[in-house]
C-alpha cells in the first residue's frame, strides 16, 4: 500500500500503536507532530506490536545511516583511521584501522589513497562524522567487505541502487549475467562497483547500468544487448 | 604603420635580419646565487629577463604539499618599465599574465621529474626587465636555464621561440614591431625532438600555412637549445676546471 505524499502533508497511521519512523518522516520536537519531509510514496508496514512508517523517495545525495552497505573512496590517511568519501563534496566519513578483520595495533590494513572499499556504516549521528567498518561485528570475519580491486564504478541515483540491491525481481543483473561473468558491489550511496575479466565487458556493463537507469524495465534487455555488441564491434576493429 | 617596411624585397626585416635568423641570444646562469637555488639572466634580442628558482623546498602552506610529487609554481612579474611607454597599472593580476603563468606551469609540469621530490615546492619567479616581442618563448628559455642551474632533474631542455607570418613568408623570432602587424605563433619544443609542449597561436593564420610556420619554428627552437646547451657546457667545464685545481 503506498500513496504519494508531499512535505507537510498528513500521514495516515494507527495513532494508538507505537510508531517507528524511518527516512523522510520527521517528528517535530515541539508539537510532536509526525509529518513527511520528502516527496515520495509513503510506506506503512504494520506488525502486531508496532508499525513503521517511511517515505520512499529518490535523491542523488547520500546521507549515512547505520547498517547501510556503501562503496567509498579512500581520500586520506590518519594515524588510526582512513578518511573515506561516500560521494563527492559530502562530508567525509572515517574508517578506523580497528574496523578490519583480525585488526590489532600491529596489524594495520594496507589500503592506499584512491582505493575503493566496500563497507558497512557502523555509526551515523547527524552532528558527528559517520563511521564505517569492514568487518562483520558479530563474527569478526571479513564478510565480503574490504578493498575493491580494479573494475569500475558507476554513479547512479540512490533509489536505483536500492532497486539493484534489494529488489530480487529487478531484471538488470540477471540480464547482464547472461552476457558476461562479473563481480559486483552495490553501495546504497549510489556507487556501484563492477568488474569483469575484460575491460570491454566491464565497459558494456558500465554503459548498460547508466542507460537502464532512465529506461523502463522492459527495455533493459535490448539496451544491454546493444551495448555488448557495440563494444565487441570496436574491440574487433 | 606602413612607414616601416616589414620585409623588404631584398629579404631584410626591420632590424636587418633575414627571415630565418634568430635574434641575439645572450644567456648566463647562476647570476643570483645568493637569492635563489638556481638563476639565469637571459637577453633574447631586446627581451631581458631574470629567472630565479627556489627549491625544492618545504612549502609554506599545507595545501601546497603533495605526498606523491613536488608542486611547481611559476610567477611572472612584468615590470611597469618593461615597455617604451611606462604602464600605469601593475600587471600582476591581469588575465593575460595569469594565462602565461598557467601555460608555463603546465609546460614544465610534464618535463620536470616532479615525482622524485615529493612533499616539496619548486618556486619559479621571473622578472621581465624589458620586452620586445615573443615574450613567452623567452620565458621558457629562462626557466629551462634556471632549473638546470638549480640542479633540478628534467627529462630534456625545453626551448621557446616565436614565428611570425608575413603574407606567405614565415619570419623567425618576431620583435614587437613585427608582432603588432602580423600573426605570430609561439612554440615550446622538447629537446631535439619535434614534440611541442606548448603551442600558442593568437591571431589569424591560414590553416594551410601553419605547417610551414611550425617547421621553421622547430628548427629555430633546436638552434636556441644548442645555444643554451653550449653556454651551460661552458659553465660546467669552467666549474670542473676550478674544482680540479
Amino acid at each position, binding site marked *: 500500500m503506498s500513496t504519494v505524499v508531499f512535505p507537510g502533508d498528513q500521514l495516515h497511521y494507527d495513532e494508538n500503536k507505537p510508531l517507528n519512523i524511518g527516512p523522510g518522516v520527521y517528528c517535530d520536537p515541539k508539537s510532536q507532530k509526525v509529518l513527511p519531509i520528502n516527496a515520495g510514496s509513503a510506506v506503512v508496514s504494520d506488525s502486531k506490536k508496532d508499525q513503521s512508517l517511511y517515505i520512499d523517495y529518490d535523491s542523488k545525495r547520500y546521507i549515512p545511516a547505520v547498517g547501510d552497505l556503501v562503496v567509498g573512496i579512500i581520500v586520506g590517511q590518519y594515524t588510526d583511521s582512513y578518511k573515506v568519501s561516500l560521494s563527492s563534496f559530502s562530508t567525509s566519513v572515517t574508517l578506523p584501522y580497528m574496523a578490519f578483520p583480525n585488526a590489532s595495533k600491529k596489524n594495520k590494513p594496507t589500503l592506499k589513497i*584512491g582505493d575503493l572499499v566496500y563497507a558497512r556504516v557502523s555509526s551515523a549521528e547527524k552532528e558527528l562524522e559517520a563511521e564505517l567498518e569492514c568487518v562483520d561485528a558479530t563474527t569478526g570475519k571479513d564478510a565480503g567487505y574490504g578493498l575493491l580491486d580494479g573494475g569500475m564504478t558507476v554513479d547512479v541515483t540512490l533509489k536505483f541502487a536500492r532497486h539493484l540491491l534489494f529488489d530480487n525481481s529487478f531484471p538488470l543483473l540477471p540480464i547482464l549475467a547472461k552476457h558476461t561473468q562479473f563481480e559486483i558491489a552495490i553501495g546504497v550511496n549510489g556507487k556501484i562497483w563492477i568488474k569483469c575479466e575484460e575491460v570491454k565487458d566491464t565497459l558494456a556493463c558500465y*554503459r548498460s547500468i547508466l542507460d537502464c537507469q532512465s529506461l523502463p524495465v522492459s527495455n533493459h534487455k535490448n539496451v544491454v544487448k546493444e551495448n555488448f555488441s557495440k563494444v565487441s564491434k570496436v*574491440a574487433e576493429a | 604603420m606602413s612607414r616601416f617596411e616589414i620585409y623588404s624585397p631584398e629579404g631584410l626585416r626591420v632590424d636587418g635580419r633575414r627571415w630565418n635568423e634568430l635574434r641575439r641570444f645572450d644567456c648566463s646562469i647562476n647570476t643570483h646565487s645568493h637569492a635563489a637555488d638556481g638563476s639565469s639572466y637571459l637577453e633574447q634580442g631586446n627581451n631581458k629577463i631574470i629567472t630565479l628558482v627556489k627549491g625544492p623546498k618545504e612549502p609554506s602552506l599545507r595545501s601546497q604539499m603533495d605526498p606523491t610529487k613536488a608542486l611547481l609554481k611559476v610567477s611572472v612579474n612584468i615590470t611597469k618599465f618593461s615597455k617604451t611607454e611606462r604602464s600605469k597599472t601593475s600587471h600582476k593580476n591581469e588575465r593575460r599574465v595569469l594565462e602565461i603563468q598557467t601555460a608555463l606551469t603546465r609546460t614544465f609540469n610534464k618535463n620536470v621529474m616532479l615525482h622524485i621530490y615529493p612533499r616539496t615546492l619548486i618556486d619559479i619567479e621571473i622578472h621581465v626587465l624589458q620586452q620586445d616581442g615573443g615574450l613567452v618563448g623567452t620565458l621558457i628559455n629562462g626557466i629551462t636555464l634556471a632549473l638546470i642551474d638549480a640542479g633540478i632533474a628534467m627529462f*630534456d631542455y625545453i626551448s621557446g621561440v616565436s614565428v611570425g607570418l608575413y603574407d606567405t613568408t614565415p619570419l623567425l623570432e618576431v620583435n614587437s614591431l613585427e608582432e603588432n602587424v602580423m600573426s605570430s605563433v609561439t612554440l615550446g619544443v*622538447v629537446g631535439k625532438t*619535434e614534440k611541442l609542449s606548448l603551442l600558442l597561436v*593568437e591571431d589569424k593564420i591560414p590553416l594551410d600555412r*601553419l605547417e610551414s610556420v*611550425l617547421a621553421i619554428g622547430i628548427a629555430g627552437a633546436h638552434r636556441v637549445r644548442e645555444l643554451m646547451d653550449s653556454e651551460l657546457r661552458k659553465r660546467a667545464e669552467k666549474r670542473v676546471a676550478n674544482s680540479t685545481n
Partner: protein
Amino acid sequence: MAKDIEFSTSENKFILDALRQNLRLDGRSFDQFRDVDIKFGKEYGDVTVTMGKTKIHCRISCQIAQPYEDRPFEGLFLISTETSPMAGPQFENGNSTGEDEVLCVRIIEKAVRRSGALDVEGLCIVAGSKCWAIRADVHFLDCDGGLLDASCIAVMTALLHFKKPDITVLGDRVTVHPTDEREPVPLGILHIPICVTFSFFNPQDTEENIKGDSNAEIAIIDANLKEELLRDGTLTVTLNKNREVVQVSKAGGLPMDALSLMENCYKAYTITEKLTDQILACVKEDDSKRNQYAGLLSSENARDAT
C-alpha cells in the same frame, strides 16, 4: 577553490585501459564531437546550447554607451563568463581566478573578441560620443566537459541571432525605435570562429613520451567531464570556415608531435565546417519562423485597416 570531484585509482586506470582499446566511456569514437542542440528563447540573442550533458545559456544585450577615448569609431563588446555552483559544486560563485577558468575566458576572448568576429566599427553611432555596447553573458548551467567549445558555439549563435533596435541619428540627437515599431537590425558578424578541444592521454610512461619515437599518445575530441579530469594535456583549435586558424592554445601539458598536432587541426576543420553550417541553418530556421508570425501579424493589421 572549491573541493574537487573525487576519483578512485580504479576508475582512473579503467578509463585509460579502455582508451588503449579504442573505447570511450560514452561510446563515442575518438574523433567524434557530441551532437550539438541549439535552442532559442523568446527574445533575440537568447540561446541555449546542449552538448550531451553539458548545457550553456548565452544572452546578448545591448545599450547605448560612450566609446573608449582612444577608439572613437568602435563600439564596445564584452563577453562575461562567470561560473556558479549550478554547473556543478566544484565551481565557486563568480570566482574566475582558477587556472582552467582563466584559460577558458582567455581563449573565448581571443577566439571571438580579438579575432574580430563582431564588427565593432558597425556599432558606432556618433563618433566619439555614442555607440552600442554589446554584452554577451555566458551562463554555465550544466558541466559535463567541453565548456569552452560549447560557450564559443553559444556566443556565436547568439550574436548571429541577436538584433538591436533601429536608430535614427539627427545631428547629435539619437532616436531609438522600439522593436515593435521598427524591425530591429542584426549585428555585423565578420566570421564564425569554432573552438574544438582535443584531450591528450599518455598510455605509456613519461619517459617514452618525451624520448621515444612511438608517438602513441591518444588524442580525443570533445572530452566529457571524467575524461577532462584525467587528461594529461589539451589543445584548443579555433578555426573558421575560411580555413583560417583563429587561435590555437596548447598551454603546456603532454608534449605532442608537431605532425600529429597538424593532423588535429585538419580534423578540427571538418568539425568546424559542419558546426558552422548547423549554426547558420538553426539561425535561419528560427528567423523564418519569426518572420512567418510577423507576416501573419502584418496581414492581420492590414485587414483591420480595411
